[in-house]
């Protein structure tokens, strides 16, 4: 009977079918590997901005093809779209920041259990709570928040 | 404040005019002097023509005879390599051809930059080797005069600054380009008054040699 931990996530897990890796990308993937090991050992997160590196679109496409796609995909609409997907390596995320004209602002490889931009901070949580209370009050339920 | 750019514009503007002017005065003065002086009249009866052997020698002397090569293979080989590299880079790199086209209105095909870059590196190595040989070889050191080192330095500076400018190893870039242009101008200024004159006189000297031999009916 397999345990929950032993079940592999869905996605590109077949290592035999990996596309070829161009030379300039090898050191980059070593940096990713090192960061992932540090995430496991120390819990520290890491980010690489592919947009700021001297990589042309072909190389970036080859890199994205190589790291594959995992099971998570998300889209944020704040000052233009931000598209996020997990790579085939869990813990390695692709975060594509774009402006309102869909021009790329930054393209991050984020090595974290959850990309930071997806997490909700305390101030936003509080604002959400207030909004919910206001809604409940408006609906005629005056019970005060405890 | 705008030092580097002003320096570049000075080398491209007033200094370029000055260098060209000095070169034109100096070189034409020397050439006219040499050509009008001619050679001492030879009263002996000519055994054969002068013109054909003279012209032939202009070209045949380019390739050293086997004896010379056996005696000084280093000088022949390294000399050949860096002279060829220098001439090709001078005449066939894009910015140089554009300069000629801009000033004289004539242009010709050029070589790709990576080829020029490689030839420049080879030329630099050749020049360094030539200097080392001059310094280390007892006879060559003895017969060298200060002017030989000056001429070497002028030539080396032109090639080195060109290499530095192409690879942007000096910041800001206008300074690199200005240094290259200035060193070329210094070379131009010194050309008529030093051994660098051989760029022009080699041809005449060889012709005189060939003609003299030809007149005597001797092969040269």
């Amino acid at each position, binding site marked *: 009977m397999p345990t929950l931990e032993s079940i592999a996530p869905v996605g590109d897990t077949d290592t035999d079918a990996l596309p070829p890796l161009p030379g300039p990308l090898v050191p980059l993937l070593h940096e990713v590997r090192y960061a992932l090991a540090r995430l496991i050992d120390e819990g520290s997160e*890491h980010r*690489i*901005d592919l*947009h*700021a590196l001297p990589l042309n679109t072909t190389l970036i496409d080859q890199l994205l093809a190589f790291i594959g796609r995992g099971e998570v995909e998300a889209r*944020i609409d*704040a*000052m233009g779209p*931000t598209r996020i997907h997990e790579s085939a390596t869990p813990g390695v995320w692709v975060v594509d*920041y774009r*402006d*309102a*004209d869909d*021009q790329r*602002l*930054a393209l*991050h490889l984020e090595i974290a259990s959850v990309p*930071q*931009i997806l997490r909700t901070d305390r101030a*936003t949580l509080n604002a959400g709570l207030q909004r919910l209370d206001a809604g409940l009050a408006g609906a005629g339920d005056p019970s005060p928040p405890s | *404040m*705008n030092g*580097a*750019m*002003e320096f*570049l*514009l000075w080398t*491209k*503007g007033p200094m*370029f*005019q000055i260098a*060209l*002017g*000095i070169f*034109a*005065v*100096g*070189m*034409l*003065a020397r050439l*006219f*002097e*040499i050509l*009008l*002086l001619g050679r001492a009249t030879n009263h002996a009866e000519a055994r054969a023509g002068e013109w054909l052997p003279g012209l032939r020698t202009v070209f045949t002397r380019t390739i050293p005879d086997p004896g010379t090569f056996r005696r000084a293979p280093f000088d022949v080989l390294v000399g050949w390599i860096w002279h060829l590299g220098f001439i090709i880079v001078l005449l066939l790199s*894009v*910015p*140089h051809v*554009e*300069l000629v086209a*801009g000033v004289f209105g004539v242009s010709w095909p*050029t*070589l*790709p930059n*990576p080829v020029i870059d490689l030839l420049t590196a080879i030329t630099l190595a050749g020049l360094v080797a030539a200097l080392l040989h001059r310094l280390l070889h007892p006879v060559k050191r003895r017969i060298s005069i200060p002017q030989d080192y000056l001429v070497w330095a002028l030539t080396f500076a032109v090639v080195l600054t060109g290499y530095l400018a192409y690879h*942007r190893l000096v910041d*800001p*870039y*206008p300074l690199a*380009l200005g240094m290259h242009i200035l060193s070329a101008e210094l070379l131009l200024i010194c050309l008529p008054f030093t051994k660098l004159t051989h760029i022009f006189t080699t041809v005449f000297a060889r012709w005189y040699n060939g003609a003299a031999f030809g007149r005597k009916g001797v092969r040269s």
Partner: protein
Amino acid sequence: MAATQTLAEQLRAQGVSRRGFLKFCAATASLMALPPSLIPRIAEALEAARRPSVIWLSFQECTGCTESLTRSHAPTLEGLIFEAISLDYHHTLQAASGEAAEAARLQAMRDNAGAYLVVVDGSIPGPEANPGYSTVAGHSNHAILMETVEHAAAVIAVGTCAAFGGLPRAAPNPTGARAVMELVDDKPIVNISGCPPIPMAITGVLAHYLTFGRLPELDAYRRPLAFFGESIHDRCYRRPFYDQGLFAESFDDEGARQGWCLYRLGCKGPTTYNACATQRWNGATSWPIEAGHPCLGCSEPAFWDAGGFYQAVSVPPRVNAEALLGAGAAGAALGAGTALAARRFTRHEQQQREPVTVEALEKRL
């Protein structure tokens, strides 16, 4: 007047969410070529940052720099950063005019002494020039500049005129135009050159100042390295054609249609440092070289005087052919004269020669 709001509060008031703010930080880091590991620190710093007061002085200029900055498409990062400063004085953008406008400048200088930023566009007739060449409210440009920068935290020279003198300074420089850095020597100065400068470069410097409270790393011309660190030539997508020796020879030949290198058409890309090739213009639509025109080198000192726009970088601005021919003729005459004098001397000596026989010599001894 600088509001007491922090930047985070300011952005929230504009309806920018936390995630929008984080994205803003990520884009700022990318823009300034900072490692993304700094993003949490950037976020922290920006959250607490107060809106700095900015006084924008326009001197001998064409308003192109302001146009560049304000023509960006909303809502953009440039817009947001621009919102994040308190622009207390700007001829073109402020509502106040006349005495009220000047009063706003003096008020901002008093309230934020030692902390405000001065942005300058346009060159300034120097102290030795006739002050009447350019005045604002009856005061010379030079007097206003010196008065305003006295208590400034830093000065940002926007555009080639303010940075290097630009068009007004071109020979023969009738108004005695000078660059800001020639007149101000006791304040940190950043030059954001270009005619006009790239809007992202202006906002990038402001963002850096907001984030870190200091100016970014600069090159030899005091330009931010993040934007002026590489030449147009080195970042040009047409560079492979230069290396292969494939050039457009005219604007309508096969090479031009094939998109080959524009070096021979006078491209100043090799001597020009700017971010046009990466940031591009008009909402990243295109840039001059992509549109098929050689770079004019507008972000470099003395670009108006640096030779023809359509002549290759290596070509000297002008060659005085007549003077050169004259020099050649003079040289020829000199050489000929020397040679003829030598020949005459030889002939003269030959004529003076007295043949001597062995017998005569023996007799003499």
